[in-house]
């Protein structure tokens, strides 16, 4: 079993059109690293050049915003669901 990561639609072209992908890691930072190894280019859209989560992107672990947990050090385990939700501005 792995961790399910939900990919926002604008990034699904980097995940072969998949809206949900399986990744591994012991915390969110690890997980995003694994995500980027599997689907190169995803992480730079989510994190800035220092590796910090961009301020207009939110990551939820099991529906809790990681900013209110331990940020990218928030622990994850098999079976967890992680959602990446960027701000979108189009109208």
């Amino acid at each position, binding site marked *: 079993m792995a961790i399910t990561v939900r990919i926002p*639609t*604008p990034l699904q*072209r980097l995940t072969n059109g998949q809206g949900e992908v399986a990744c591994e890691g012991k915390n969110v930072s690890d997980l995003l690293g694994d995500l980027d190894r599997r689907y190169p280019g995803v992480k730079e*859209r989510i994190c800035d050049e220092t590796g910090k989560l961009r301020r*207009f992107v939110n990551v*939820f672990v099991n529906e809790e*915003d990681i900013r209110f947990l331990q940020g990218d050090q928030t622990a994850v385990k098999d079976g967890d669901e992680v959602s990446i939700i960027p701000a*979108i*501005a189009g109208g």
Partner: protein
Amino acid sequence: MALSKAQVARYSRQLILPEVGVSGQNRLSEASVLVIGAGGLGSPVLFYLSAAGVGRIGVIDADAVAWSNLHRQTLYETPDVGRPKAVVAAERIRRLNPEISVEAIEGRFDAANAKDLVSRWHMVIDGSDNFATRYLANDACVLANRFLVHGGVVNFQGQVMSVRPRQSACYRCVFPEPPAVGSVPSCQEAGVLGAEAGLIGSLMAHEALKAILGVGEPLLNRLVVFDGRLSRFREVPVRRNPDCAVCGEHPTINAIQSIESAPTCAG
């Protein structure tokens, strides 16, 4: 106030809802709503609000109708290309419902007019198409204490949430800062199916009508996310951020300031 025969006929299908009735219809006619952006989201919003009898509607947009708008911006027809959107949209909804008052504002919603504009309406609906306007609309609504319905759509993704300032999470609580200019890749692949903009805009209109009528539960502290590829709605709980720059414990935004940001396409 008693309704005329014509009003009873026009609104009959919502009047028979126990949640609306004559008192609800009066609430709608006494309500005033500013719609920022008369585009893919603003079109259904303006249509349903005017059709429902929202008494005073303002529409602000700086653009002219373009060919590329016609696949999703349902207020416009081919002969409207080149005409100012705010004016055409206002004409269109006045024809739909001549009983309401509509104000067309041709121009940009910007730092100079934001607070004054939102203060003149009970509620604000943000259907704009860029981050700078979205953060400005949020900040102005928090500072002027106006209920805000926020929605966005791009590339098969849609989002909707409502904000009751200082009582529920604001847009900045959820997304603290807009993308900096140049920080996100260009928008070449951005695009949207017209029906998806209609779907999200309809949800925003529905949210506004519910809030005016006091029906059910608004989308406070809840962000609805639509994945158009999977046709799946999800909801994530959001919460007020004590460090929020505009509604937190030590706000750094105490007056409207202009916002620089990349245009439409983050993520």
